[in-house]
């Protein structure tokens, strides 16, 4: 299959129009030594029947766990059927970025609605049209904070998702921004350390809430400390269903809120595509990276939508742009929008179910011999337990068809034999009782 419709006859006609005899003549401008003299060494092309057989067999080699307690930045939540059906309309997914406003009102309006949803959830004034994922959004937020404050240092809580930390460090290193680790103590960011590390050179402080260990941080108190020295507080939200339940980061003093929207209707997909969201205050409207859609009017006074404030962006401002981002995660933003429209205020029930079930499991596990619950503060839908041997625990569960938590020893040398468990509304009491039985 090659999806090229031209017949031999048509190709000949086109040759004649152009004035060539052979297709090679079109490539005469490429030096002979640079022309590939053989066929690409790839598996031979396939018919659709063969293709499906081949790829379905690869998909079949992956193990799908019916029962899983693994989260850590990728969450299993219920996705109503209506979400995928609407998002898969090809008028959306085969379109390009909505630069031609008159023919792209659908996508533009959807982005405007998405921006509104993100603002409402985060309690912020404005949100952009999306970023690649939570980690790259966080990295861009760190750079944005240093541009606003003109101070090239950020404090990064070690209770931020380690893959996000790594991404922030990669971007900051490239930009000559110094990243200082802000340690945690018993599962939350150490405020004493924060006080010590805050000084006039710090442009931004990065806190995750709920943090990587599932615990809620003291955002209000942190915001006061950060603002005292005039730095920017960046709140990172990796599990955004939590926003339905807790006071918004905006209400608690955040200056920039970023996170990943995967929990809102996107399947696990082995890590992507997901979607980064970013929201901030009105005063930083010209500092935010990424696209923005605004509501305006057409020449006849009708409501219309358009990409706006593009003078921040790479295609206009080039090296002076607020970011290099072009393609973002538009279809995932649409997914988030449709998911949130479907759930509406019932998103709170998703959050309540997830949190209550998590506490149910944590309490029961903590009572088992040899298991200790580490979280000392309020936690949402993830928690950490210390066990005698993490690999033995995971293997026991695995043998019973259950995917256990993430082994934190992979990320933190001081957290060997610590497991991070996640529970969502999809986990049943039966499943939780089963793992308690297995581990008893």
């Amino acid at each position, binding site marked *: 299959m090659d999806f090229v419709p031209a017949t031999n006859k048509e190709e000949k006609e086109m040759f004649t129009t152009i004035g060539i005899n052979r297709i090679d003549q079109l490539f005469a401008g490429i030096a002979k030594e640079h022309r590939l003299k053989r066929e690409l060494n790839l598996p031979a092309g396939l018919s659709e029947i063969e293709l499906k057989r081949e790829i379905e067999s690869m998909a079949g080699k992956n193990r799908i766990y019916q029962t899983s307690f693994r989260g850590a930045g990728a969450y299993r939540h219920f996705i109503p059927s*209506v979400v995928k059906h609407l998002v898969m309309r090809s008028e959306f997914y085969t379109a*390009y*970025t909505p630069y031609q406003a008159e023919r792209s009102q659908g996508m533009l309006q959807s982005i405007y609605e998405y921006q*509104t949803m993100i603002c409402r959830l985060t309690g912020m004034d404005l949100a952009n049209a999306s970023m690649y994922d939570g980690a790259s959004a966080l990295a861009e937020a760190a750079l944005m904070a240093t541009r606003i404050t003109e101070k090239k240092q950020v404090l990064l809580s070690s209770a931020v998702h380690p893959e996000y930390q790594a991404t922030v460090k990669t971007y900051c290193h490239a930009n000559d921004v110094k990243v200082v680790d802000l340690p945690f103590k018993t599962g939350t960011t150490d405020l004493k350390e924060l006080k010590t590390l805050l000084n006039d050179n710090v442009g931004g402080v990065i806190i995750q809430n709920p943090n990587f260990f599932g615990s809620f941080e003291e955002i209000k108190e942190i915001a006061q400390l950060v603002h005292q020295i005039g730095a920017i507080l960046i709140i990172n939200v990796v599990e955004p269903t939590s926003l339905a339940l807790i006071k918004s980061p905006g209400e608690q003093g955040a200056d920039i809120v970023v996170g990943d929207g995967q929990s809102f209707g996107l399947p696990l997909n082995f890590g992507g595509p997901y979607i980064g969201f970013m929201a901030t205050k009105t005063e930083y409207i010209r500092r935010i990276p990424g696209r923005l859609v605004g509501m305006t009017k057409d020449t006849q006074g*009708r*409501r219309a939508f358009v990409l706006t404030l593009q003078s921040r962006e790479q295609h206009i*401002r080039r090296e002076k742009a607020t970011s290099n981002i072009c393609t973002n*995660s538009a279809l995932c933003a649409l997914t988030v929008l449709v998911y949130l429209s479907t759930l*509406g205020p019932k998103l709170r029930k998703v959050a309540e179910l997830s949190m209550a079930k998590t506490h149910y499991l944590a309490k029961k596990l903590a009572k088992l011999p040899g298991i200790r619950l580490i979280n000392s503060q309020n936690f949402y839908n993830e928690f950490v337990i210390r066990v005698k041997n993490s690999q033995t625990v995971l293997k026991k569960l695995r043998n019973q068809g259950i995917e256990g938590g*993430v082994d934190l020893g992979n990320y933190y040398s001081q957290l060997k034999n610590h497991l991070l468990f996640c529970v969502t509304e999809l986990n049943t009491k039966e499943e939780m009782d089963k793992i308690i039985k297995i581990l008893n």
Partner: protein
Amino acid sequence: MKLIFEKSVPGQSSVSLPESDIGKIKIDQLLPKSKIRKELDLPSVNETDLVRHYTELSQRNFGVDQGFYPLGSCTMKYSPKVNEEMASLTGFTQIHPLSDDVDVQGALQLYYELEEFLKEITGFTAVSLQPAAGAHGEATGVMLMKAYFEDRSEKRTKILIPEAAHGTNPASSALCGFETVTIKSNSQGEVNLDDLKKNMNRETVGLMLTNPNTLGLFEKNIKKICQIVHHQGGLVYCDGANMNSMLGVTRPGDQGFDLIQLNLHKSFSTPHGGGGPGSGPVGVNKKLVPYLPVPRVKKNGNLYCRDYNHEKSIGKVKTFMGNFGVMVKAYTYIRALGGKGLKRAGQNSVLNANYLMKKLKPYFDLAFDKTCMHECVFSDKKQQLYGVTTLDIAKRLLDYGYHAPTIYFPMIVHGAIMIEPTETESKRTLDEFVEVMIKIANECRTKPELVKTAPHKMLVTRVDEVAAARNPNLKWEE
């Protein structure tokens, strides 16, 4: 059209969730009241209205499935439906990125093989699939260049970028702290070698070059260009946005480039999704392999595994393994076409572009009159005589049921109209498009007002961009 928020009726809903199976939930026993949110201001809509709302929005949009989309530099080819179906297999969608390697052998195999395919297609030593889009791949590439010089303890602060480059090139360089030096084009629309020689020195990491360039022209001096940069110890970066026309014909790795980013959503038919998600793999030659992002996927015997142990790696540019769902589509596409099919795709993208160029040449001013690769660039020079501009022509095309070409880019062509037909368009489609373009050229002469006030047949007329920027309204407030 109303917003979803304006269709909200308290009490309506589109979702049913189960009751708690662990007894009544008392959140205030789990969380202090001071931390609990008071209201959640999301719309309440019934499922019928919800479906109609987003269906109507889709009908107010335009994709390749509705019609010809000759958007230059964006490679808006048809995306085979089988891609979508394969990416929707539960064996791919329901696996966790932090699952144990033994549980995700199929996914790791696909990842590994796709890297192998892209190595062969581009002629590079190694590929990383981690970046999420073209510009993300560019930034990753520039970070690799930076890491390479840091490792050699060389302090280089500048980067060379031709004036016709995509805006992402200078922006990606700035993201990595480099100062951009603009290189002029010559009268042929290619890199000016004298200007390159003058600016390439030991303070410069190298050159970012799009090939074929943004005028749709293959840089015929590519060998010399690479020599000039390499002679000063620099690296040559290939912006692979236009890879489509080179598939199976020529390989950037063989042309002398040191690294490349690909756009899987362009050349490899994973759709653009209305502006993403994409995937922007980077390919590198031997010099740059140690710096690639982690994890790398390795094959040990018959087992695939993730390897984080690369001391000189730049680290991570995003979470997990990149946009895996997009990779499944690109993998499906490459397996469907094979080497022969890819070459035919590349060749026919060039054939279609040259055919359009030849047919339109009598009616529109051609910026550079020579054989092009995958796209050709016209301008509004002839139409300006009647007071009609490129923007007007673009808007008029919408009335005839087409998407507009890329306009006002590259900036070195005043009033540029950049047309990229791709190989998946039939001759009939191209002929019909030519007829419409001729019709518009005639309208510019005979009824210029009609063109200047276009579009006339869309759901909205021209939108007020100035007002949108002056008083930004970025969210709905009741």
